[in-house]
């Protein structure tokens, strides 16, 4: 039990370090990387806490985290590279569907 607590503590330290990096920057990519790491840490933290609490059935949440984290990161990168989440290339045809 205490081992799980220690693991949580370690993850907490990890959180703080990662968030510091996210705040410091300096490039946006540093922040993305840091937030991505925060996400991973959160996945782990939730998994560990599930065991800690005796209800490990809630790993679904961790699973969700992992997925969302990935999608979020990709979206952010897309935003950075193309300044948009939409089509970064102009559509060839004029499709005014209205």
């Amino acid at each position, binding site marked *: 039990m205490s081992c799980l607590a220690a693991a949580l503590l370690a993850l907490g330290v990890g959180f703080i370090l990662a968030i510091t990096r996210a705040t410091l920057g300096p490039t946006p990519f540093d922040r993305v990387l840091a937030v991505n790491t925060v996400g991973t840490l959160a996945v782990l933290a939730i998994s560990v806490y599930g065991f800690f609490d005796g209800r490990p059935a809630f790993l*679904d949440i961790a699973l969700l985290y992992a997925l*969302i984290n990935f999608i979020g990161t*990709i979206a952010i990168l897309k935003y950075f590279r*193309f300044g*948009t989440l939409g*089509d970064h*290339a102009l559509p060839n045809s004029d499709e005014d569907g209205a």
Partner: protein
Amino acid sequence: MQDDVVIRVVAKVMIPAVMLFALYVQFHGDYGPGGGFQAGVIFASAFVLNAVVFGLNKGRHVWPAHYNLMGICGGVLIYGFTGVAGMAFGENFLSFNVLADDPIAGQHLGILLVEFGVGLTVAAVMVMLFFTFAGRLSHNRLLSKSDAHERRLAPKSSPSKEVTK
């Protein structure tokens, strides 16, 4: 982003997985955490991923706007008419006990239906939100063909490099 082969391939693996996970969350809300709303959001995020990686137009092609509006309204109506069904059986609105012979089965059915309604609406709304917001951008770009953007978006890849097959 389809010019990046790693992302492209991984996204192709992930998208069905995410969708399946969403449906799992949808239908297992009775037993574990989750339910219609969460499922809807997750399901929508699969579409978001799809659109982010493969482009909005392709995303729209998958689920046209008109279907989407029907989804948005349909979910609400499913929920509402599940409730009305209770009234039709002589009980009050949203009364599920009478939906089946056995009250517990009725409750199950009712919960399943309303969760499905929620999930449908939420998924459709979230997809719509994303497409509207993101679509606004490209639309705007078209209006003001600002060059700063043009330069930035001239990627090494060309649209022809789209995934085929």
